[in-house]
């Protein structure tokens, strides 16, 4: 299966420096469970993933919405 290219390629939280964790989470959310249904249609996406936060009780995980476009390379 061709590699899925996301635009933008990196995803980040404005509060937490979690882009290394968020980028694969967004990528996974776009690919996960949708591969069988991704035939034609619009190539834009909008997913909800959990930003892990700072990992503390006061500043924990919170949901974020990310938007972009996908294409097959």
């Amino acid at each position, binding site marked *: 299966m061709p590699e899925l290219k996301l635009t933008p390629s990196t995803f*980040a939280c404005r509060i937490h420096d979690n882009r290394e964790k968020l980028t694969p989470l967004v990528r996974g959310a776009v690919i996960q469970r*949708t591969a*069988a*249904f991704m035939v034609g249609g619009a190539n834009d996406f*909008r997913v909800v993933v959990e*930003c892990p936060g700072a990992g503390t009780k006061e500043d924990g995980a919170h949901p*974020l*919405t990310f938007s972009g476009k996908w294409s097959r390379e």
Partner: protein
Amino acid sequence: MSDVGYGEEPTQDDLDWAEYGKTFTPATQIELLNATSEKLVGRTALVGIVLAAGGLVAVSSVLANSLSRGWAIAAVTMAGGAILVALVTQVRWPRKVRPGDIHDLKRWHADYVGWRRTALAFASFLLVPAFLAAAVAAGVALTAPPAPPAVNVTATTVPGADGGAPTQTLTGSVTIPAQGSDDVAEITVVANGETVVRMRQAASAGTIAASFEAKGVQTDVGITVTATSAAWKCVLNLARPRGEVCRALAAE
């Protein structure tokens, strides 16, 4: 332009759709395909109901008219094709799968879902023209004028036994549009002044259709077939077979 996408606070709408998206698991994909396949087989039975216009049209009436017969054949062919495709998707090939290996499981899943999804989509689309063709067939049968009445007789000469005089066998048929479900036609065949056939035929599916046979009829005699229903009177004289045989009684 920055190549970084920053997350936004999700709306309630985002959260609701994300929750719904979690129901699209690999297992539900297969359940969806199986349910679609079963529904398809069930829905094709509705084509028959449309063909009969919900019971208003007898199948014989649909088949009697060449135009409605053509549409009916198209409808049944397409519905049959949809059933066939749906049945083929229910066939399962024995393929080994190692459920503990996610890669192998994904390959098995892709094999299972891949062509079935396309085939079922095709079958689903096929049902739409099938329904339309059935509706057209029923509509044509409902609006088409009834077939005109007809009387046909064939006389076959049979050699006489032991050098006797030859006789003839009369075979014939009468078809008259029925005035109603309780319409009855009185049919008589008279040869040389003698009644050789007398019968009553009731209407069925909008038509009175009867066939008769008379053996041992003397040759070279005048033969007259008379069929009378509530709305039609047909008189066929074998010696003078020209002209209009059947007349509408109301027009007389």
